[in-house]
């Protein structure tokens, strides 16, 4: 995949904010560009122990997705994306440590973390909530899931129609409306921790 068009952090941010195919490309390129740096930084922070690599990789991915959400919905203010990502990862790490004392933090010479570890973004999703969301998603059906996920990722109705092989933009809009109504019916009366 070609990532040459993203020379600076604002290029990535603009690509993500555009939504749809642009967001997909920008997100993938951003992840590929800084992933190693973030992993090394976090591994140094926790003190590398064999067996922790997969857990750290998992946290780095979760932090990356939090970062993308912050870029899309507010919460990112023009700083270096790599430091932003490392900061979020460390916030998630501290939350994890509250429940799991296996990781010993090494003193961090550089204060990357400017984020409030108690903010809602850093609260790890509980197993109960995860199960509830997954159950609702699975009841939605594959086609509806695809349409709503693409829509939430900023794809236009034209792009959704093209990607899912729907006959027209109008058909994509109609499908999205039906699926969203179905989902609203499903969540009615269900308690979801927001």
């Amino acid at each position: 995949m070609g990532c040459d068009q993203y020379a600076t952090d604002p290029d990535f941010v603009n690509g993500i904010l555009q939504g749809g195919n642009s967001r997909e490309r920008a997100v993938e390129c951003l992840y590929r560009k800084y992933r190693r740096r973030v992993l090394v930084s976090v591994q140094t922070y926790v003190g590398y122990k064999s067996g922790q690599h997969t857990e750290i990789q998992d946290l780095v991915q979760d932090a990356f997705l939090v970062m993308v959400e912050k870029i899309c919905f507010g919460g990112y203010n023009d700083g270096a994306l790599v430091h932003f990502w490392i900061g979020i990862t460390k916030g998630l790490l501290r939350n994890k440590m509250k429940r799991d004392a296996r990781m010993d933090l090494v003193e961090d010479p550089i204060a990357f973390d400017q984020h409030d570890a108690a903010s809602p973004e850093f609260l790890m999703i509980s197993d109960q909530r995860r199960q509830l969301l997954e159950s609702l998603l699975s009841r939605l059906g594959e086609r509806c899931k695809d349409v709503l996920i693409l829509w939430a990722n900023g794809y236009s109705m034209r792009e959704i129609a093209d990607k899912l092989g729907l006959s027209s933009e109008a058909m994509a809009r109609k499908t999205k409306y039906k699926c969203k109504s179905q989902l609203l019916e499903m969540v009615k009366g269900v308690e979801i921790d927001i």
Partner: protein
Amino acid sequence: MDEHTTEKIEAYLTGTLSHADRAAFEKDLSGDADLARAFTEHTKAHAVINHGVRQRWKARLQEIDAELDAPAHTRRVVPLWRKWAVAASILLVAGAGLWFWADYAYADRTIATSMLAVTEADAFRGEGATLEQRHVAAETLFMQGEITAARDAFLTLAAEDNALSPRADWNLLMTYLVLGDQPSFDALLRSLIADTRHVYHQRAVRLQKTLQHPLYRLTH
């Protein structure tokens, strides 16, 4: 809930409202109980959708990790058939090159031209200069491709009994080789090999070895 309000809620939840519109919407939200109720339902629905979005992205990031963490040698697997095809192509090209080279290097004319005994320039002095000139004339005919005329000239020179007759024997052999006169060539070559005292005996032996070389046999 009317379509316009739904669109506004969705725009708020997908982050596509401007800063000013967001503020206005939040103000409406605090003063409108119906809007607040609808907003809560949409927020729950969006929590489900966003969970799906995160799941999809997570799966994609895991694919990228697997791709980037794979050892370099496993990233690009070359199928066996392609390796064989490349090897066969190299052999084919090398074989064709060898064939063209051997076809030239082991051609009768190439062998004869490279082995022709040539008269030295300083031989044109004193007695015998005329004999030398006759040899040079015959060699020139050979070099110019007039092999039959060269053969006749060397036949005459070889029949004479003088110091240059052995050279005429040898050069006559070369003309037989180029002309493809196999019986005459074989007879003369045999006699040169048999006569160990002949000046061109060693050359005759070498020529015989060349003619027995596998590449000579392959190209003839």
